[in-house]
C-alpha cells in the first residue's frame, strides 16, 4: 500500500476526534437555533401588530389615520373613554406594546394647517431587535399621512400644479460608472450589495485558515506530547512525505470543518438578513450590477478558488513551522496567535478600509502579509484589476514555496526535535 496514503489516513483518523465532531455539531446546532429564533422573531414583527388607539378627535382625518394603520398591518384596538392616563394604565395591563393618542381637534388643526401632535406610547417590555419595530412602523405611517395631507393641501390651493413638482422642483438621476461601463442606479445600494457579498469571502477564508492551521500545529505538537514523533521519524518514508501528509490531512479536516461552520453561519445570517440575492433582485440592484459587469463569472470564481487554496497552503506551511516550535498541545495554542494576527489584520482592513488610502508603510505591511491578497481579491475581480490579482497569487505562491522548503528542511534535520521557543529553558535528552 502507498506509504503516503497510509500516513495521510492515520493523520485524518487522529484529527477526527469525538470532541471535534461534538464541537462541530454543537456549533451548527447553535447557529441554526439562533438563526431560526431570529427568523421567528422577524416573522412575529412582520405579523399584524396590535395597537391601542385612544381617539379623542372624531373627525374624518383621525378615521383616515386609523384606516392607514390597518393597511400598515396594525390591528387597531380602540380604547374607550376620554382619559389619557387611564388609557396608558389600561394598555400597560394588556399585551399590546403601542398606544396611539389622537388629540382632540386633530382634524380641525389639519384643515387650518396648524401643526398638531399625536402621541405614541411604546411599552418596552423587551430589549430585543424587534422591540422598537412598532414605533418605527407607526412613524412611517405618519410620514405617509403627512405626505398625503400636504399633497392634498397643494392640490386644493394650486390645482394646476403637481404637488410632487412643488415639493421637489429639482430631481436627480443617479448614474454609476465602473471602468468603461455605466448604469443608472444608486451607488450606495451597489456598494452596500458588493460589500455584503464580499463579506463572506474574508469570513470563510479566516475560518478555514484558522481551523486548518490549528489542526496542523496541534497535529505536530501532539506527536511531540504523546512521544510518537521520534518513532515516526524512523519509519522508511521521506520527511517531506511526513510534512505533506500532516498538511494535507489538516487542510482537509480544516476545510471540511470550516465549510460545516459556514453552513451553520449561513443559517445564522439568513435569520437576521434574509436571502441577500433575493433582496437584491427585489430592489433592482442585481440588474444594475449586471450592467456594470459587477458579477462573478466562472473564471472569477475559479481565480478566487485558486487564491483561497494557495492562501490555505501558505497558512499550513507556516503552521507546520510553528508546530515544530511547540513542545506540547498547550504551547501549540499560543503559537497560533501570530498566525491569527496575520489573518485578522488584512481581514479588518479589507472590511473597514480601502488599501489605496493607506499610508505607504501600512500599504507595504498589508501587501507583505500573504493573506491580504485573497481578502482583497473579490473587489479586484469586480473592478477587473487582474494584474493585482495575478501579482497576489504569484506572491503567495512564492511565499508558500519558501515556507515549504523551510518546513521540509526543518523536518529533515534534528531541529524538528531540538527546536523550541526560547521562552522556556532548552531541555536536552542525552
Amino acid at each position, binding site marked *: *500500500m502507498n*506509504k503516503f496514503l*497510509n500516513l495521510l489516513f*492515520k493523520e485524518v483518523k487522529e484529527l477526527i476526534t469525538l470532541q471535534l465532531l461534538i464541537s462541530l455539531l454543537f456549533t451548527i446546532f447553535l447557529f441554526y437555533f439562533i438563526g431560526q429564533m431570529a427568523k421567528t422573531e422577524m416573522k412575529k414583527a412582520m405579523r399584524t401588530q396590535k395597537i391601542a388607539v385612544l381617539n379623542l378627535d372624531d373627525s374624518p382625518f383621525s378615521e383616515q389615520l386609523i384606516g392607514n394603520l390597518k393597511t400598515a398591518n396594525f390591528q387597531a384596538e380602540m380604547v374607550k373613554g376620554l382619559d389619557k392616563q387611564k388609557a396608558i394604565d389600561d394598555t400597560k395591563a394588556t399585551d399590546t406594546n403601542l398606544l396611539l393618542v389622537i388629540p382632540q381637534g386633530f382634524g380641525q388643526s389639519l384643515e387650518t394647517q396648524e401643526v398638531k401632535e399625536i402621541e405614541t406610547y411604546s411599552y418596552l417590555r423587551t430589549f430585543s431587535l424587534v422591540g422598537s419595530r412598532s414605533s418605527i412602523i407607526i412613524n412611517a405611517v405618519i410620514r405617509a399621512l403627512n405626505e398625503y395631507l400636504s399633497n392634498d393641501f397643494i392640490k386644493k390651493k394650486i390645482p394646476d400644479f403637481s404637488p410632487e413638482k412643488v415639493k421637489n422642483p429639482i430631481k436627480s438621476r443617479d448614474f454609476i460608472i465602473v471602468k468603461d461601463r455605466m448604469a443608472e442606479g444608486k451607488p450606495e445600494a451597489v456598494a452596500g450589495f458588493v460589500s455584503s457579498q464580499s463579506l463572506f469571502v474574508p469570513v470563510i477564508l479566516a475560518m478555514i485558515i484558522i481551523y486548518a492551521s490549528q489542526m496542523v500545529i496541534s497535529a505536530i505538537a501532539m506527536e511531540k506530547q*504523546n512521544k510518537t514523533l521520534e518513532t515516526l521519524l524512523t519509519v*522508511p518514508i521521506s520527511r517531506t512525505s511526513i510534512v505533506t501528509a500532516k498538511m494535507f490531512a489538516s487542510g482537509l479536516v480544516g476545510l471540511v470543518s470550516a465549510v460545516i461552520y459556514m453552513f451553520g453561519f449561513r443559517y445564522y445570517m439568513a435569520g437576521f438578513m434574509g436571502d441577500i440575492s433575493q433582496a437584491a433582485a427585489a430592489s433592482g440592484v442585481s440588474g444594475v450590477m449586471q450592467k456594470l459587469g459587477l458579477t462573478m463569472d466562472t473564471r472569477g470564481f475559479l481565480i478566487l478558488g485558486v487564491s483561497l487554496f494557495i492562501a490555505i497552503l501558505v497558512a499550513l506551511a507556516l503552521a507546520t513551522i510553528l508546530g515544530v516550535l511547540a513542545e506540547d498541545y498547550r504551547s501549540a495554542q499560543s503559537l497560533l496567535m501570530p498566525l491569527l494576527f496575520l489573518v485578522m489584520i488584512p481581514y479588518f482592513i479589507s472590511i473597514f478600509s480601502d488599501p489605496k488610502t493607506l499610508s505607504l508603510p501600512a500599504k507595504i505591511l498589508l501587501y507583505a502579509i500573504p493573506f491580504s491578497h485573497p481578502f482583497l481579491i473579490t473587489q479586484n475581480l469586480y473592478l477587473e484589476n487582474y494584474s493585482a490579482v495575478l501579482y497576489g497569487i504569484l506572491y503567495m505562491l512564492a511565499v508558500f514555496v519558501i515556507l515549504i522548503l523551510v518546513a521540509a528542511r526543518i523536518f529533515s*534535520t534534528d531541529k524538528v526535535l*531540538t527546536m523550541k521557543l526560547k521562552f522556556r529553558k532548552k531541555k536536552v535528552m542525552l
Partner: protein
Amino acid sequence: MIKAVEVKNLSKSYGNVQAVAGIDFEVGEKEIFALIGPNGAGKSTTLKILATILKPTDGEVFVYGKDVQKEPEKVRKLVSYLPEEAGAYKNLKGTDYLKFMAKFYAQSEKELGEFIERAKDIADLGTRLNEKAGTYSKGMTRKLLLARALMTKPDLTILDEPTSGLDVINALEVREIVKRFAREGISVLLSSHNMLEIEFLSDRVALIDKGLILDTGTSEGLKEKYKARNLEEVFRSAL
C-alpha cells in the same frame, strides 16, 4: 565478519553541551550489544543518531555498511527503534496502530498479515488490542511498542531502556522476547540502567560516561578484568 553497526569517532553537541565526545564501537551481526551508563552519559543520543533521528556533529556511523548521514532512508529500512519515552497514537486502536506501522515495511498483504500476527503474539494484549491505545497502561503501551519494533524482524533493533515502566513479570517477558529474536537473527543494540538486565541480555557491553566509552567487553570479561562481582562494580571501578 559482517558488522551491523560501525561507529567511528562519533561526537554530538547541543550548543555548548557535549553529549557524545568521540566514541568508537562496533556491533556484530546477531549480537546483542548494550550501552550502560548513568543519566546524561550520551546513551540515548548515540542511539538516536543510529536511528537517523539526530545528526552527528562529527564522526561516521554505518548500519550494515550504510552511512546514516548520507543514506538515512536506506538505514531506516534496516532499523527499528524503540525510544525510552515513547507513546502510541491515542486515537488508534492497538491493532490499527500495529497495522499502520507495519504498512511502512510490508511488501505484500501476506507479509503485512504476518507482521501483525507476530506483533499480536509479542504484545500478548489479547482483546485489549481492539481498544484505543489511549486507554492502555504504561506497561501495556510499552509492550505494544516493543511488538511494533520487533514485528518486522528488522536487521537491527535499537532499544532504549526496553523494560522502562514495566513490572517485574512483564520485564522478564520482554527480556525473553528480545533474547528469542536475537537468536532468530536480529542484531540488537540496547541501553539500560539495569545492570542485571544487561548481564542477562547482552553478548557485549560498552561502559559509557560523560560522552566517552570507558571500556568494552563481555560481561564476564569485564568482571574478570576489574575483579568485580557484577557489572555495577565494574562500572564503579571503570569510572
